[in-house]
């Protein structure tokens, strides 16, 4: 035990001896957290419209007013030239072109159906679909009004209407900050643990100091533990910092138990550091380590459900994700912080993290050869 403590002290000294890194491991995550958490929203705030209104009657104006009243759409340009409208679509200045044909008002007045052409810039498929759904909803509402007006004198119960109300739980205001903070925080602690921990070991190899350790009676597992704990501590400290900042700056709720979150973060970081050490044991240079670590890092981040939902992934990807510690940690963090889920709800995920962590650490210990 004492041996491990000495080794850990050595690691801490080495980290904080580098003035730049000593400051950076605390300052950079804080700055990034504060900057990037408020940035992200996926809600569609405004869809810029370009309108080709060939009709110019009170009916077409009524339609446009109705569309604008929703607050989602903003009419940016009125034009009669189709070329102009499409060049706006090309240059991203408008997201949608609505074409109201000549005779629109007349036909509505007579009770004839009219086609309205809607062209959407669909490179971003999701926002295109979402804005189309919004628009369709608005137009359906208008249709209902017109139909009710027309047959109002007859039987009002003839038309059936289903009202759909929605309620959002756990994040009533759909606050994206409360969604992003756990994600960005998890990325930051992962990156810090991975870079510091991995590079540290490979560097000892490159400089040759690892041979000095190899000739001492330090055991393999002691060495791995000593390489793991300092970075685990630093990452957990960053996590604590991040949570406090989130509380202060973004009023981040914390419904569940803090202890549970730190337990899962510890298991998660053991898994990450286990993988990191495993990679660095088999790398000959920092460069090699870095590219392999980067490969896993990006996969963890982009498949971990931080930015995009894991539920929509294809089945094979979900299978890969069973081995992705980030998925479990993300789910646990959001559940504990926002829903107040307890041990029963997240037990399985914790167990998965534990299994991954132990497997990787054992592999790291076994892979480490004292003989060169």
């Amino acid at each position, binding site marked *: 035990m004492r041996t491990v403590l000495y080794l850990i002290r050595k690691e801490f000294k080495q980290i904080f001896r580098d003035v730049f890194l000593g400051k950076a491991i605390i300052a950079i995550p804080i700055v990034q957290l504060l900057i990037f958490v408020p940035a992200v929203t*996926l809600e569609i705030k405004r869809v810029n419209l370009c309108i080709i209104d060939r009709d110019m009657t009170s009916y077409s104006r009524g339609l446009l007013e109705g569309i604008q009243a929703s607050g989602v759409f903003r009419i940016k340009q009125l034009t009669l030239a189709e070329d102009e409208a499409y060049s706006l679509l090309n240059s991203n200045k408008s997201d949608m072109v609505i074409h109201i044909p000549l005779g629109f008002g007349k036909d509505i007045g007579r009770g004839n159906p009219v086609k309205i052409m809607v062209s959407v810039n669909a490179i971003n*498929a999701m926002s*295109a679909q979402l804005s189309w759904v919004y628009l*369709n909803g608005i137009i359906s509402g*208008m249709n209902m009004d017109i139909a009710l007006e027309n047959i109002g004198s007859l039987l009002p119960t003839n038309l059936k209407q289903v009202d759909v109300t929605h309620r959002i739980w756990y994040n009533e205001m759909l*606050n994206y900050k409360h969604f992003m903070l756990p994600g960005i925080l998890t990325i930051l602690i992962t990156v810090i643990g991975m870079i510091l921990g991995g590079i540290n070991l490979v560097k000892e190899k490159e400089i040759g100091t690892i041979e000095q350790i190899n000739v001492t009676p330090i055991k393999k597992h002691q060495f791995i533990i000593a390489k793991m704990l300092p970075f685990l501590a630093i990452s957990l400290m960053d996590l604590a910092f991040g949570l406090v900042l989130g509380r202060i700056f973004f009023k981040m709720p914390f419904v569940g138990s803090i202890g549970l979150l730190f337990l899962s973060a510890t298991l998660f970081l053991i898994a990450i550091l286990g993988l990191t050490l495993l990679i660095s044991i088999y790398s*000959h240079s*920092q*460069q090699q380590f870095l590219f392999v670590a980067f*490969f896993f890092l990006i996969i963890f981040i982009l498949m971990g459900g931080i930015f995009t939902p894991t539920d929509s992934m294809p089945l094979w990807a979900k299978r890969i994700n069973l081995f992705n510690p980030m998925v479990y940690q993300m789910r646990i963090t959001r559940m504990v912080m926002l829903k107040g889920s307890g041990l029963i709800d997240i037990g399985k995920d914790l167990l998965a993290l534990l299994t991954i962590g132990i497997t990787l650490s054992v592999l790291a210990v076994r892979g480490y050869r004292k003989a060169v």
Partner: protein
Amino acid sequence: MRRLLGFITKEFIHIFRDLRTLIVLFGIPVTQILLFGYVITMEINDSSIAILDLSKDEVSLNLSDRLCSSGFFRQKENLNGYDDIERVLRSGKVKAVVVFGEGFGCDLITRGKASMSIIADGTEPNYATLVCNYITAIVNDFSREQNEVETGTVFLLQPEVRMFFNPELKDQFMFVPGVMAYVLIIICALMTSITITREKEFGTMEALLVSPLRAGHIIVGKVVPYMVLSFVTLVVILWVSWLVFELPIRGSLGLLIGISMLYILLGLSLGIFISTISKNMQQAIFISLMSLLLPTIILSGFIFPVENMPKAYDVASYLVPSKYYLIAIKNIMIKGLGIGYVWKETLAMCFMSAIFILLSIKNFKERLQ
């Protein structure tokens, strides 16, 4: 010139000597494009929901069927009471619960109006919004059809939509260019920043500095081999995304490759700049990853549309190199536009590369004194 060639040859030997890194260098971008092209998606499909049907009549069963056969939703559980809602949402088993109150169908038939509600899990706000919107749209379609069939009412406003540039609404059109921009710049910046700091750390940089090579030569010599490697990577990436994801190249291929090479040069010169301000590899790696990993995902328009962000972020995003590249390649590949629509982005990337290179040369010279 011959000196420079000699130096470049040395760099090539360095790179090819380390076979593992070389494999990783080509392997990473290709695997990642393949993987993320499939995996990164914002769509809803097969999303788990639970249904609490207190009415259990023809209409509510019909609607539940509709929801679950749409392909967007899958019924994971049938709830019996309001108490169950909390349980299933808290355990994260389902993303939303659809509730039909008592006498739902009866209300609809006798009074013409009935209400149902959706309770969605807001921990993923975007997903929650999408789920609510999709369910509402399906229900609206349902009532419209019912009305048309039963009362013969024809709705007058008939919107017809055309999805421009991406008629099949493939998510890949958004994300594959994003992954390209993301992976290319990080790999380029990491490569150069490491190779230079490595020379510093091992002391071989001093040998270079006392040689007759000028600062500019050293930088060019470091950049050229990686430009060549990245060109190969680029071609492979473009080929894979065309082959697998049917990502079109509607514009000029020459222009696309030209702009991509410019972007690669930008990434490499950023890497060199980072190496001139860091003392060792650890610092260089730390700075490269921290300055690229998150800012590029968030501010380049890769996943999140920058236009919707608060104003300050929109402004800050002009500092992110990938933003220009993404706009440019989407314009060229998907919209099929020419130089007229991408000259601003090209200029911005030229400008940024020039600044990084000049700063690096300046930093180099200072070390000589």
